[in-house]
């Protein structure tokens, strides 16, 4: 028993007929109806209806300084990025998550790189106050273990 919301989206393509050497036409019509699932888990993952709500929720929660959630969103809905024509409802969220992740990562990465490469040279004594191992020592964060 299959309710409509659980069926994956199917793509149908037909190949044109081919004429062989003897002139007879061989019809090669293939109904390419392999279902494409919206999630990377395939049949074990979500159906399309649930995918929309999941993608939307991941996208919205990612704004809480959670680029990793955007990355997980893109990873989870990778088939949506690949076959973007088949999933018009999920696609905008996954695209925006991908864009958001790349923007955030480039910003954070450039800051981290500047910090690491610049060092005291660039920042002055503030560098020593900001670097993590000093902060850890100062606050006694490693005293737990």
């Amino acid at each position, binding site marked *: *028993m*299959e*309710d409509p919301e*659980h*069926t*994956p989206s199917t793509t149908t393509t037909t190949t044109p007929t081919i004429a062989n050497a003897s002139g007879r036409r061989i019809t090669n019509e293939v109904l390419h109806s*392999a*279902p494409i699932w919206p*999630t*990377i*888990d*395939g*049949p*074990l*993952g*979500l*159906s399309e209806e*649930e995918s929309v709500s*999941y993608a939307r929720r991941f996208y919205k929660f990612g704004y809480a*300084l*959670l*680029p*990793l*959630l955007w990355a*997980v969103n893109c*990873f*989870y809905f990778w088939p949506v990025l690949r076959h973007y024509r088949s999933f018009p409802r999920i696609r905008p969220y996954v695209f925006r998550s991908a864009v958001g992740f790349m923007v955030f990562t480039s910003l*954070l990465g450039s*800051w*981290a790189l500047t*910090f*690491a490469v610049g*060092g005291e040279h660039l920042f002055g004594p503030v560098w020593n106050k*900001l*670097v*993590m*191992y000093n*902060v*850890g*020592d100062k606050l*006694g*964060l*490693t*005293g*737990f*273990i």
Partner: protein
Amino acid sequence: MAPNQRPRSILDSLGEEIVRIVTPVSICMFSVVILVSILNGGFSSASGSISSIATVAYSETNSDSSWDKFKGALLNALVFVGVVTVATFVLVLLFYLRCTQFLKFYMGFSSFIVLGFLGGEIALFLIKDFNFPIDCITFLVVLFNFAIVGVLAVFMSKMAIFVTQAYLVVIGMLVAYWFTLLPEWTTWVLLVALALYDLAAVLLPVGPLRLLVELAISRDEDIPALVYEARPLTNSETISRDELVQRRVWRHRNTGDDTNGTLDSSNIRSSGSVLNSNTSSNATDQGAATVHNHSRLAGAEEGRDLEYKSELSAPLIDHGVSVQLNGHENTMPSENLLLEGIGLGSSGAIKLGLGDFIFYSVLVGRAAMYDFMTVYACYLAIIAGLGVTLMLLAFYQKALPALPISIALGVFFYFLTRLLLEVFVVQCSLNLVMF
């Protein structure tokens, strides 16, 4: 069905399933060994460096005699097993009173503590070791992301399978590393004591894990606990979720019934439910005793193949272990409801409780503190034990403890290697007989 699919032999399906459970166990053990080698390479013993529930009775110091150390370790282990038993019974009680929401919340909270605090501390150790020039803002953002996504992965039932599995392995690795910081004698005696406890709790009729499993079977629910579930094999891409048997663990096999009948009934019953409903509950209690409940879930359902549909389900009792830290200044949250146990999910995927991951890794991590030779020996012993347990699981089709055989073999081979093999191999190498 695609015309070019050849029938899968038992080697394909069974071998694939076994590989899918041995791989994460191996990855967890390997990462703990790496962590131990990097972080503990400096000092040889961590005597009295942590105070936790596992060392409340006796703190090992270097100056004690062997017999004193052994007695102290025994006391520690007994206290710990006692706490675990009490906590498991509390879990059974809560499950009986249907407080599943509370358990799930506790699980998510403890995952957050483990990933955030324990993970943060270990990351800090690594940063200090390598003098990695990361600033605190970046570190906090990355840690925050890591912990929150981890909680979501553990909490939510429909996250990407790979992400959930990866986070469970990471949680196991972090907790196992923490356990390796216990004093040496305490660790070994604790491992043996827990293996015995596991055996008793799962197989005895009065054992808490067995009660938990039977309760879950009778209600046809999943235990909220941390359980690693391997990805089930799917034969064809066209099988929709409705045709796939839902992951229900607690169904007994009806040997007399028609197997197709049981399959259909399970489909109808579980058609709307979410897969992966046996998410583990991981509860950490800051400052309170948390119990690791090790449970073994054994339920096998192989209902996908059109030729061979049989539904076996044996509940695997999970029983989590919780560890309490009683430090003055430390706020390390205790461990959470980690489940141990091996079983089969309703879709034929093998499930192994997280407690098993942890204690296997603790054993190998401890072996790594001595030498790599013991690591190889213990790793092989544990994998052999796991294989035997899987065979027994297929044979008995009920909840089985995954700890005893592997821990017994592991401990046995550790001491054999350390006492006998090492001398032999070193002498051979010195005389250039064997490298």
